[in-house]
């Protein structure tokens, strides 16, 4: 069976891993620690494809009817 890249599906928003600098900026912007970010499992299909490790932060660019684009940040956790 042909392997399908789910990231190309239209209902899957764009996920990108942040680099260390971006991560730090994000935490500084909201004055928070990693623990205060919304979480996502390392076993999440998209995270597996991105090879995200626990502690990484992923930016999700969601389409929104009212706001156009809404960025969301989630920290990868074990599982």
């Amino acid at each position, binding site marked *: 069976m042909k392997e399908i890249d789910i990231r190309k599906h239209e209902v899957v928003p764009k996920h990108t891993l942040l680099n260390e600098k971006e991560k730090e900026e994000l935490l500084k912007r*909201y004055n*928070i620690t990693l623990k*205060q*970010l*919304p979480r996502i499992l390392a076993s999440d299909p998209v995270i597996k494809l991105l090879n995200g490790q626990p502690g990484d932060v992923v930016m999700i660019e969601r389409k929104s009817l*009212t*706001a156009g684009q*809404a960025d*969301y940040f989630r920290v990868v956790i074990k599982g």
Partner: protein
Amino acid sequence: MLVERIEFGIINPEMVKRLAVAKLSKTEIYDQEGYPIEGGLMDPRLGVVDPGVRCRTCGGSVGECQGHFGYLELTKPVVHVHYAKILFGLLKLICRKCSRILIDPKEIEKIQSKRLGLKELMKLTRKKCPYCNSEQGKLKFIKPYSFSEGAELLSPVKLRERLEKIPNEDLEVIGFKKMRPEWLVLTLLPIPPVTVRPSITLETGERSEDDLTHKLVDIVRINERLKENIDLGAPDFIIEDLWELLQYHIGTYFDNEISGVPPARHRSGRILKTLSQRLKTKEGRFRGNLAGKRVNFSARTVISPDPMINIDEVGVPEVIAMELTVPVRVSENNLETMKKFVVNGPDIWPGANYVIRPDGRRKKITPQNKEEIVKEITPGYVIERHLKDGDIALFNRQPSLHRMSVMAHRVRVMPGKTFRLNLSVCPPYNADFDGDEMNLHIPQTEEAQVEAQILMSVQKHIRSPRFSGPIIGAFRDQISGLYLLTEGEKKFSREEFTQLIRAVDTEIEIPEKEYMTGKEIFSIFLPKNFSIELKAKSGEKVVIKNGKLIEGPIDKAAVGAEDGKILDKIEREYGAEAFKKFLFSITRLAIEVLMKSGFSISISDQDLPPQATQEIKNMIEGVRKEVDQSIEQFERGEIKILAGRTPKESLEHAIKITLNQSLNKIEEVLNKHLKNNYTLMMAKSGARGSLVNMVQTAAMIGQETIMGERMQRGYIDRTFPHFKKGDISLEAKGFVGRGFKSGLTPFEFFFDAINSRESLMDKSLKTRHSGYMERRLVGALQDLKVEYDDTVRDSANRIVQFVPGEDGLDPSKIERGGLDVDRIADRLFG
């Protein structure tokens, strides 16, 4: 004292002993003189409930001492009813002989860190003990608190022996940490302090004990009897019986609603309320006393309408205003006014009920001591004065389904015994005056008052976040009145229009005119440069240009609550105060118009001219024929079968369409023939009722349905025994070709009753459903909060949303799904 952490677990008998201040064993509670016996259940060391007595343990008086636990040594161990199930699970998991876990050590290694539940562990157990290789007997759980192995009953003593032998490493696999399973079987019973179970002294001097005390007396008594019998060497069966009885009493002490066990009763036959019953249910400790509490400074009474007060006011009866108070700190500036309140005292409004001295002492003001108190008042005192006009109050009507169910109003003290509110605030509260009651709360601090005013006042809740329009607006009579005034080109003489305008406002200049039209009168109250175009409910065009109503009637679409386009725009462009003023003005105007012109309805409003009746009759006849034709077609198998439907369903569908069309046609006929009367006017303007209601009274009710289908239940293959089996004609399936006015046949009436009952049931089921949904939603969202950096966070300060609602827009302020920034800028600067 600082609470560092809370640990949940099973209480250890050692701990019971350590927490206790007294060992109890006496069966008597009081001696001959009526003093509590030491070692009895009301032991003075357990705390105080009577005023004037000091605690023997801590020396505190009532209020200071919260009580101390005691303990009872049980002669024989008993099972804790709520742990019985866990016990059974544990027993099955361990070897009957050596008490080792029945799982292979190799297997254990694999699952060590997995935290499996009892059920999952059970799946891994062996038939034979992997340690001592002994056979495992069949265990049975005899509800509610006994166990047997084969034919032999396992006594709590044996249970304990087995559990005690389980090694700690096996327990860790099962999930016990810092806990021993034998603690699940009780050997010591903690006796709660007397403050938990206070006795009440009746007027006769008799003492009445709490239910828990009664239960504890039973336990102590049986425990002592059991001990005596064992000491005497009584036969085994007597001891067994007493032991069983002790188990029963301790079981019901924890939970008096165990299935299969008769509940313990009071002497009078009343079922005792024991520990579980105190905590459980809506009235229990959690839902009744911790999650929700009774509050002070609140009032509740029947509501009634008052169009003369403003929408952000509430009429408070004088008797209530003299009971509810606001604390005011005395300063040099208000000293004299405050003194006046005290002079009036508690019985003359506006007076005061209490003074609080600078040292914090509260003193009740009575007609006798008020003169004295006035003399001592100096700055620094606090006076709890009666409610007076202008005070802030929170007004609420249950069910509180949205935030507009609690709003801040300004108080207006009035004679009478009901709360008064402006009719326009009925929609947000969903209130009417058929006996509705509402609650009033008085914020007690300046912060609370200001906060209520800023966040909760009626003005701040004109727009509903549900549909971003005004939820407060004209309805019922207000719409009738305005429609009557503005519809067509009615002329009012100088005398008439002067009276109308003066009824609203005594300041407005009366135009120098001989005559004024209704539209001109309405226009007076519009903002000067206001322009809008909209469609009236009837489809007519309504045009307002520069504050002048040029064409079209004012109806629900213009000023109605939830729909009013004019109200929407006024609130948006001129603000809440202008909205309030406008709404109040048109309310007064509408009522004045109705009073001057008169407004009444009659059954004759539904009268139709003979030719209309004939027309409708023919129409119904036509429908009948059409349906009969469809049925014939169906029987001949010639019916057009619709995609995805069986022939029968296609027929039903065809009939439904025919019926719907006929109803529309009848509506047209009514529209054509009905004289312009008040009933019709109410329907047209959206004040009350609809054209469907008129069709149902004047012409016909139409098809009665159940679950969206034509009637089909009752007898086998027919709805009534006088129809042929399998009859699918209109009459046989609940078609009512008559209106309420001409009357229904008994069969039609019955069909209608079926239909009505279904809608009634649906309605009640739906409200219950949505009520529970709301409760769960509130539970999930209650501690979310928008922080100052515009992130949505929960109580642990974790981010839930980075921008509220993804777009950061306030749903009550948006227009067509967003904000038109250009237009707002144009209005403000252009």
